[in-house]
C-alpha cells in the first residue's frame, strides 16, 4: 500500500511514517499544500493522511483539489480541531474518515485499513491469520472454518488486534477504539479486560490459539509468533 502523509509537523509525520513503514507500506511525506499537490499529480497513492491546518493553506482546499482531479485515493483527515463543522465539511467534501489528534498510531492504522478495504471492490474483505479469519463485509468471524458468535465489541476488538498484529496496544488505545472520545474515563481498563477475557474464551472454545499476550504495564499484543 502506498500512502501519502500530508502533515506539517515533522515529528508527527515521521512517527506515522515509521509505524506504517513497519507494516510494509510505502510512505511519502509532504509538509505543505504545494508539495502535496505536486506529488499527487505525479504519483498514485492508495491512501492519503491529510492534516487540516497546513502552513500554506487549508487541508479542506487540498481535499477539494484531490476530488476535482479525480484522484481515487482513500482520504483520512487528521485534525487537531475536533470542530464538528470541520468534520462534517471534511466528510461531505469527499474524505473517507476523520481522526482527531492526538490519536494512537494503531487507531490511525486501523482506520486507514478500513477505508482502504472499503474502497477496494475486488473483495479484500477477508482478514485472516492462521486459523482466524474475519469477514469485514459481513462482520463475521471464523475460527477453523466454523463461525464464531462474537458481540459487536468483541468483533471490533479482534479486528483491531488483527490489523495491528505484533503491536503493543495500550489500554487507552483500545478503550478509545471501542468507545470513542466521549467516554470521559469510565474505568475503561476494566472493560477492556472484560471484553478481552470473553474474546479469548470464545476463541479458545472454538479451538483457536490465544494469540493475545498481556504486555506488563502497557497493554496487549497480538503475537503472531505464538504457537
Amino acid at each position: 500500500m502506498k500512502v501519502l502523509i500530508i502533515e506539517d509537523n515533522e515529528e508527527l509525520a515521521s512517527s506515522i511514517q515509521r509505524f506504517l513503514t513497519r507494516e510494509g507500506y510505502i510512505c511519502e511525506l509532504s509538509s505543505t499544500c504545494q508539495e502535496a499537490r505536486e506529488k499527487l499529480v505525479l504519483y498514485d497513492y492508495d491512501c492519503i493522511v491529510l492534516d487540516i491546518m497546513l502552513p500554506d493553506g487549508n487541508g479542506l482546499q487540498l481535499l477539494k483539489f484531490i476530488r476535482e482531479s479525480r484522484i481515487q485515493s482513500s482520504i483520512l483527515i487528521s485534525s487537531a480541531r475536533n470542530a464538528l463543522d470541520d468534520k462534517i465539511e471534511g466528510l461531505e467534501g469527499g474524505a473517507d474518515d476523520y481522526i482527531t489528534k492526538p490519536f494512537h498510531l494503531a487507531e490511525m492504522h486501523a482506520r486507514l485499513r478500513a477505508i482502504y478495504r472499503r474502497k477496494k471492490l475486488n473483495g479484500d474483505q477477508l482478514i485472516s491469520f492462521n486459523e482466524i479469519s474475519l469477514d469485514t463485509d459481513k462482520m463475521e468471524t471464523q475460527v477453523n472454518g466454523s463461525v464464531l458468535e462474537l458481540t459487536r465489541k468483541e468483533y471490533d476488538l479482534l479486528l483491531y488486534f488483527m490489523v495491528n498484529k505484533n503491536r503493543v496496544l495500550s489500554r487507552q488505545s483500545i478503550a478509545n477504539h471501542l468507545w470513542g472520545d466521549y467516554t470521559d474515563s469510565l474505568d475503561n481498563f476494566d472493560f477492556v479486560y472484560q471484553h478481552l477475557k470473553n474474546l479469548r474464551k470464545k476463541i479458545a472454545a472454538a479451538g483457536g490459539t490465544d494469540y493475545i499476550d498481556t504486555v506488563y504495564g502497557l497493554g496487549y499484543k497480538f503475537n503472531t509468533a505464538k504457537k
Partner: protein
Amino acid sequence: MKLINKFTLWYISITLFVMLIGGTIAYYRVKKEIDEGEIERLKVLNGKTAEQIRLGVATELQTNGRPIEIVRIDSNVVSNTCEVVENSFYNPNINHKECRLTVNSYYTIDGQSYRISSYNYVTKTSQILRGLISSFLLILLLLAVLIAISARLVSNRILQPFHSALQKIHQFSLKDRKPMNLPPVRTREFNELNGFVNKMTDKMLEDYTALKEFSENASHELQTPLAIMRTKLDLLTETELSDDQAQMIGSIQEGIDKLSRINQSLILLNKLENHEFETSVHIPFCRATREAAATFSELMDMHALEFESHVEGKVHLPVHPALADILLNNLLSNAIRHNIPGGKVVLSLSRQGLTIKNTGEPPEVPTEQLFQRFKKGNQSSGSIGVGLAIVKQICDLNSYRISYVYKDSWHIMDIRFP
C-alpha cells in the same frame, strides 16, 4: 410599565397639578370680578341717590322701589366714603343660603350727614367653586382621554425605529458573524442608541472571532505536541523494554490520555459557551437515549449493576445531536462510576424530562458544587471532573432545568425540558 403609559401618566399628573393651581386662581379672579362689578354698580347707585337728595327729589322717587336705605346720621362723617359688607345668611323662603353684598356710602349734603345703603344678592362662593370644579373635571377628563389615545397612536410611529432595533438585537447571534447594521434614524436618541449598538456588536464580533481563533489555536497547539508524545510512546512500546520502563511508559500514557481528555473537554466547554451548538432542528431524543442505554447496559453488566430504563417514545427536542450524546454519556458514566457494588441505575425519559438515578455513597461536598469545573466528589476517581460542568452547560444552553439531589441513598439527577 410601558414607556408610553409612563409618559401618559406624567402628562396627566402635570395637567392635574396645573389645573388645581389654575382652578384656584380662576376661583379668586372670578369671585373678585363679580364682587367688584356689583360693588361698582351699587356705589354708582348710592351716588345717584345722593345727587337726587341734593336736588331735593322725594325719597320715594329717589329709591325708585329699589332696596335703598337712606339714613340721616348725626355724627359727622367723612363725605364720599363707603364701606362694603358681605354677609351670608340662611333664607328660609328659598330654603337656601344666600350671599348679600351691601355697600354703605356716606355723604354730607347741606350740612346733614347721610348714610345711603344699597344691597344686592351675589353668586355664592360655593356655587362658583362647584361650577369651576365640574368644568375643570370635564376638561381634565377630556384631556386625559385625548392624551391616552393620541399617545398610543403617535408612539407607534415615534418608537418604530426603537422597536425595529429591538427586534434586530433579539435576532442577533454571534454565531452568524453578521454585523448588526442598524440604519441611522431621525430621532436623535434612537440614532445614538443604534450607533452604540452597532459599535458594541462590532466589538463583540471582533472579540468573539479573536476568542474563537484563540481557543482553536490553543487546541491545535496543544493537540499536536500531545499527538507527538502519544505516537512516540506508541513507537517506544515496540522496542525492548524492561518491566520498569514499560510501567513508566504506561504511566506516561495514562497522563497523556488524561491531558488530552481535559483539553478536549475544555475546548468543548468553550464551544458551548460560545453557543456554537445552536440548532433549531428537533431530534428524536428518545432514540438517542435508547442507544445510550443499549451501549451502557453492557457496561452496567460488567460492573454487575442492575440497570432499569423506561424510555417514552416520541420525545423530540431541539438539541444538537452531539450534545444529546455527550449529555447522556456523561450522566450514565457518572451513574456507573459513583455507584456501589451490586448497585442500581434507573433511567427514565418522558416528554417532561429525563431522570437518571443511581445508588451510591453520600456525596462529600454539597451537590450543587459538583456542577463546577474540576470539582470532584471523590478526588481519587478516574474522572477529570468536568463531566457535570459540561452537562450543566448543555442544560443551560437548551434552557433545561437540572437538579441534583441525594436522597435515601440515591443520587438523583433530574432534567426538566422546557
